[in-house]
């Protein structure tokens, strides 16, 4: 029984399930050496998203040098972006993104000055740097996986567990694309230098460079580079694997090279395996040894509508439209421009979008090359998709549930393990765009999970708030109790005596008056009889009560009159100010707010009691209140109008509209 390492050394290969053999069509673009295109004058660099704790380190109007970092950030997976050339930042704004949705994202737009001057670069020797310094350099260079997923490379180079095997992915299984193929042929030594840096960081037992057998020149070039390199020859080898789509997928390639299956939801590092793309190895070498950040990459231009198909160095941030103009792009009627390959790529809705770190191919097929989308027919349950699925899923089951929007059931069939390779759609005899269904289902599941998380957070916040209100209440009660106790404690004994004395006096007085009334009653009995006295004293009480009520009424009336006068004064003052064209901002604002509040109140009153006289009168008052400022509006218009005035006018108009609406409602009712 051979150990895994011995099997690796012998180049033993395992079978991966599923897969298809689409036409390769790579010769269209892999015939010439990678060349450069003239520099465009405008670049669009999308900046990292808000969640990554990034801030812009440049502002509009700044002059930037080629390679200068545009952002600063602190997040673990944060990657900086860099200026692709020297020039001026003309705008930082929402710009259409290179994404299947073309939704706008915040982007930094740079106008090139044509000088293309580098910022200060810090070249290093590998021996001078510590491992953490190398990782930091890789992070600061903004290196993301160049295979397409664009995952930050420094995270993968700093795993928590021991790494036994590093696989360098030069498979490039997707039809048409030849960027990695050409990179391996033209820059094999640089790639090997990058691999030696990865070796230095991870210290694995073996390094395998995997290349499909349809790229024999690349395999030969890499083999030659290995013999020239300083790496010990017994740990690194080139393994040629049979051509099949999608062998280049991370989990598929691991299965082919090692026979191990990466468990669902796990990452290869848990098996002691790390995979990097050849393009990433090249970029790591540039970043560590030369100090150059990741600002350009190899992009394959292919398809029959491109006059000069081939591989080109393109700056990150070059717009697709600019790039296509340089390669004699001749669009058809209804021309599709596909980012990525024909299997996993997406068509662009707008060509004014930037090249990203993960953009490896721009495909411009003619009508004859790619069949137009056929109409979807019913699933006939042939099972071809299940045979083709490289992830061993049941695509037709997933399809049923995704189409019926039973996303939970689709999830129970392990939808999340779908790699969206498109094999099932490719083999489907009914032309069902299966992957489209899975993508919709996946995003729906993601959004549901997100909502659930948010609901959980809202619940926590709600409970914390209730707890806080409860605590505040008890604290308040406790405080008042304490204050009462304190008052009592602070009372001196003499005070206590005084209180006692006062109490005694009151008691004595009461006794006296009781005696007196008794006396009077006894004396009065001579003149009138007892019942009349009993009737008399309530009468006195009644009159006293009515007097008190009258007093209270008068007081109320006085207060009402006062407040009415105040309000009128306010309004008239405000309007007077308006008409005098001498507006105090604050006053105006208050007046507007009062008017709005009144309108709101009137609206509510109208709703509750439409026939009530008082309500109508109050609405009349409001109408007046509204009319007054609007009357002054005309005078305002004559005077130089300022923002505040316009705003007040808007608020008044709004209040009016609201009132009119409510009135209408009332009438309708």
């Amino acid at each position: 029984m051979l150990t895994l390492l011995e099997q690796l050394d012998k180049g033993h290969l395992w079978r991966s399930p599923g897969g298809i053999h689409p036409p390769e069509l790579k010769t269209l673009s892999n015939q010439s050496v990678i060349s450069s295109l003239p520099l465009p004058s405008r670049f669009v660099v999308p900046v990292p998203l808000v969640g990554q704790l990034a801030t812009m380190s440049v502002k509009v109007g700044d002059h930037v040098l080629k390679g200068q970092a545009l952002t600063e950030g602190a997040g673990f997976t944060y990657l900086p972006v860099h200026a692709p050339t020297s020039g001026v930042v003309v705008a930082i704004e929402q710009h259409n993104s290179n994404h299947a949705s073309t939704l706008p994202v915040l982007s930094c737009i740079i106008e090139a000055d044509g000088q293309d001057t580098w910022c200060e670069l810090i070249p290093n020797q590998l021996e001078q740097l510590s491992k953490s310094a190398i990782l930091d350099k890789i992070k600061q260079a903004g290196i993301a996986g160049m295979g397409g997923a664009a995952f930050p490379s420094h995270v993968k180079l700093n795993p928590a567990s021991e790494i036994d095997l590093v696989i360098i992915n030069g498979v490039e299984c997707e039809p048409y694309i030849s960027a990695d193929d050409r990179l391996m042929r033209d820059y094999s030594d640089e790639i090997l230098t990058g691999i030696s840096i990865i070796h230095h960081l991870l210290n694995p037992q073996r390094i395998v460079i995997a290349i499909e057998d349809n790229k024999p020149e690349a395999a030969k070039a890499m083999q030659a580079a290995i013999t020239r390199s300083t790496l010990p020859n017994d740990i690194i080898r080139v393994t040629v694997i049979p051509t099949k789509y999608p062998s280049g997928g991370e989990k598929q390639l691991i299965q082919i090279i090692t026979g191990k299956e990466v468990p669902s939801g796990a990452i290869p590092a848990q098996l002691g395996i790390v995979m990097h793309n050849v393009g990433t190895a090249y970029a790591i070498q540039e970043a560590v040894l030369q100090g150059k950040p990741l600002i350009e990459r190899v992009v394959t231009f292919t398809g029959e509508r491109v006059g000069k198909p081939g591989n080109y160095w393109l700056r990150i941030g070059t717009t697709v439209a600019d790039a296509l103009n340089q390669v004699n792009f001749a669009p058809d009627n209804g021309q599709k421009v596909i980012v990525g390959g024909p299997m996993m790529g997406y068509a662009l809705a707008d060509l004014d979008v930037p090249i990203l770190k993960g953009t490896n191919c721009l495909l411009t097929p003619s009508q004859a090359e790619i069949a137009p989308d056929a109409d979807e027919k019913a699933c006939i349950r042939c099972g071809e998709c299940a045979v083709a699925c490289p992830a061993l899923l049941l695509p037709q089951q997933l399809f049923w549930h995704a189409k019926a929007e039973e996303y939970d059931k689709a999830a129970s069939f392990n939808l999340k393990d779908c790699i969206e390779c498109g094999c099932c759609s490719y083999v489907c005899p009914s032309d069902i765009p299966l992957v489209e269904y899975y993508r919709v289902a996946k995003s729906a599941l993601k959004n549901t999970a997100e909502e659930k998380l948010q609901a959980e957070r809202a619940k926590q916040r709600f409970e914390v708030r209730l707890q806080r209100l409860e605590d505040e209440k008890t604290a308040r009660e406790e405080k008042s109790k304490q204050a009462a106790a304190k008052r009592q404690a602070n009372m001196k004994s003499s005070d206590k005596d005084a209180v006692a004395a006062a109490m005694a006096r009151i008691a004595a007085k009461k006794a006296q008056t009781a005696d007196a009334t008794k006396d009077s009653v006894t004396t009065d009995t001579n003149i009138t009889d007892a019942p009349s006295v009993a009737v008399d004293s309530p009468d006195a009480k009644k009159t006293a009560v009515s007097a008190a009520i009258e007093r209270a009424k008068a007081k109320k009336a006085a207060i009402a009159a006062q407040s009415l006068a105040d309000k009128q004064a306010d309004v008239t003052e405000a309007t007077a100010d308006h008409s005098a064209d001498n507006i105090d901002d604050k006053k105006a604002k208050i007046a507007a707010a009062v008017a709005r509040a009144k309108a709101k109140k009137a609206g509510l009153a109208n709703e509750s009691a439409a026939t009530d006289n008082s309500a109508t009168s109050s609405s009349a008052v409001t109408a007046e209140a509204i009319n007054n400022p609007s009357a002054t509006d005309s005078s305002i218009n004559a005077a130089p109008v300022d923002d505040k005035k316009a705003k007040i006018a808007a608020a008044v108009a709004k209040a009016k509209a609201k009132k009119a609406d409510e009135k209408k409602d009332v009438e309708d009712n």
Partner: protein
Amino acid sequence: MLSSIFIAVAILTVLALAFGVILGFASKKFKVEGNPIVDQVDTLLPQTQCGQCGYPGCRPYAEAIANGDKINKCPPGGTATMEKIAELMGVEPEPLGEAAQANVKKVAFIREDECIGCTKCIQACPVDAILGAGKLMHTVIAKDCTGCDLCVEPCPVDCIDMIPVETTIQNWDWKLRAIPISVIDQQQEDKRC
């Protein structure tokens, strides 16, 4: 003959006693605190704490449902939530009480230059998602806002808007391009005319 009957009766009695003891112990030891169905219903509800069901929050409504209240009183949850509760409670799904509104997720937005700093919306917010102090401008923490609408009514100057959540690359659902766009050839079009 008789002895076998006695033996059977004795065995059954012993068994009954033994199980009785085990069950009695289990009912003490594994006693469930509270009503688990309330928790299950509560996790299904959207936790907007909006009070549109007539209860002061989602949990009180979950308790009411567990006690047999109607399941169609939650407009933010929509039909999907109602159906899930129906399934959980084993009752017939009922259409939502009010006409099911277009269920677009919204967040509150304060027009800050119109805010007078009265703190009324802060007191109304059930999830403490509004920031501000007396006589100072207030603002909504968008990511914590549940879109419950409760702050709109108390505002004396009407400066709070409910705006639909924007679609970004993160929450885009691939459905935007579900509309098939066919490119009609200009010449064909001309011929038809």
